[in-house]
């Protein structure tokens, strides 16, 4: 677990690499999430001060976007596309299968902290759906068997 001094040091380093950038808040939040796996609450006042914003404004931006996490995700993140093209190829059925296999709903993490399941709206793989992205790796034509294989591989 990181202590707040570690967080402060790293956040300040990230802020320094974004000096002079126009509209830098999203790139900063992305960099912080890439570093910690989520955006720690402790980072918000440091960012706010650096950008001359209120902490509420920074929180407002962070919480607006689906990508930014307030808490760390599970060890693995499985995102399944829920959009129309994937639906037309059975995405709802595949998602229900994944939820059952993992024993969790959308946005939840398995009890052992291994897998977080999230919906995603379109990966641009609409001609080879249903689509998924597993720890950043794209997967097309996902069916129930594929889900089982993916989950089985997430150790």
């Amino acid at each position, binding site marked *: 677990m990181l202590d707040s001094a570690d967080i402060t040091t790293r956040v300040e380093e990230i802020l320094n690499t974004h000096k002079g950038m126009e*509209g830098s808040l999203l790139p900063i939040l992305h960099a912080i999430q890439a570093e910690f796996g989520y955006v720690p609450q402790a980072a918000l006042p440091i960012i706010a001060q650096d950008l001359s914003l209120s902490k509420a404004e920074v929180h407002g*931006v962070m919480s607006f976007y689906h990508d930014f996490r307030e808490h760390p995700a599970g060890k693995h993140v499985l995102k399944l596309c829920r959009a129309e093209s994937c*639906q037309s190829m059975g995405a709802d059925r595949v998602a229900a299968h994944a939820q059952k296999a993992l024993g969790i709903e959308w946005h939840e993490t398995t009890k052992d902290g291994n897998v977080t399941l999230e919906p995603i709206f379109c990966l*641009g*793989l609409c*001609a080879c759906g249903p689509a998924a992205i597993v720890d950043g790796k794209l997967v097309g034509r996902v069916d129930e068997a594929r889900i089982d294989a993916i989950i089985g591989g997430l150790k």
Partner: protein
Amino acid sequence: MKIYLPLDSAAVALGADEIAESLMFQAKARGVNLTLVRNGSHGMVWLEPMAEIVTDAGRMAFGPLTLSDVPALFGDLASHPKALGKTEDLPWLKAQTRLTFARVGVIDPLSLDDYKAHGGLAGLTLALGMDKAGIVAEVTNSGLRGRGGAGFPTGIKWKTVSEAVADRKYIVCNADEGDSATFADRMLMEGDPFTLIEGMIIAGLATGATKGFVYIRSEYPIAIEVMQKAVKIATDAGVLGASVLGSANAFNIEIRVGAGAYVCGEETSLLNSLEGKRGVVRAKPPLPALQGFMAKPTVVNNVISLASVPVIFEKGAAFYKDFGLGRSRGTIPLQIAGNVKHGGLFEIAFGLTLGEIVDKIAGGSASGRPVKAVQVGGPLGAYFPRALFDTPFGYEEFAGKDGLIGHAGLTVFDDSADMLKQARFAMEFCAIESCGKCTPCRIGAVRGVETVDRIAKGDASAIPLLTDLCNTMKSGSLCALGGFTPYPVMSALTHFPDDFAPMKEAAE
């Protein structure tokens, strides 16, 4: 030995990286000196991963490849079980008019030399010899309209920015391609990134802007990587920078990454996001063309709009305008998706009928069942029944049938689709993605889900209520998210009333 194998996301999602690894391994084991070029996809997604081997006769295609097909690629090619013949002879490619996508799949996306050898930078070179008004006039004369979905004439937008007086101006490329069934922006950025860069530089020359941003959605990791590399290569080569191709004009590009908000595909919301704010929609006026990024005059154009500019200069506005029908000029990259036999990207002049696209080009459904509905234009587009399959593909033609072409994505559904469920999803999606600024969208979408649920339970009195709610959302929302969600909902209700009938549940 030279082999092309796509780095395109769809090819990768179907195993292209594993095929690439196997090719390298097999080549090494056989002592073959292999040059493996990771190119863009030709757009035949059902054939991906599709490798092309360069032979004396031309590029020979093989696909869809599995790992077990790899060893035979080093043997007698004619007898390879996945041999498709010469790439250029494939019927799906031959039937197209590839202008914007001419180089996608053909060249090494990150080779500037390859780009130039295939006509790249010819348009920019011509534009550098023209004045601002001349560049704007060329784009106006081409008839190019915004390919993001709104269909606003690109030349008029550029003219407004060009004539605005300001100390700084910006070119913002909207690469937040969030509509389901669309992937043209992604394929272009992955397969021919320099075309987009060239188009943005020309936009800069036309307007006096010296800074450009490409706002790419985070769901497109490969496109982000390719664009970042391409900008670096273009900058190092002097295509971008203080002196574009040695001229007195400066232009720089920065790649920015979205954060999973669909509404940021709306231009004012995108600008707020780019400024580091919540992606909340802005009221218009002021137009972004006058007060856009950081309140400075800004061109906000879709990837395909900008990427179509170089070919317009290379071949001339008249050449481009010659394609199409009515007020829809030039070509459109159709993105055929969902439950189809042959899905992918198909660039053609405007004017094919929906039926020709679905039945002939796409070859019907993947499941083999009858096609029930086609959603055209993404999650905010209408569902078209077979009765409207004679609608020609054009902006006005689709608007005339209470639909829209949007970004030209088509999702095909077979007869197992439940249109009430699709209508409910449209409302649910709007509720999830609403930026929250205006009431009809923020609250209307939530009430919409509830109202569809009432209909599903057999409450017929909720049908007029849903219609009324859709009218309120349509006329009262600030942007297309709330304003266009009624398209899928009302089209489902209008064209597929049986799915909304009260006896439905009882019958089941």
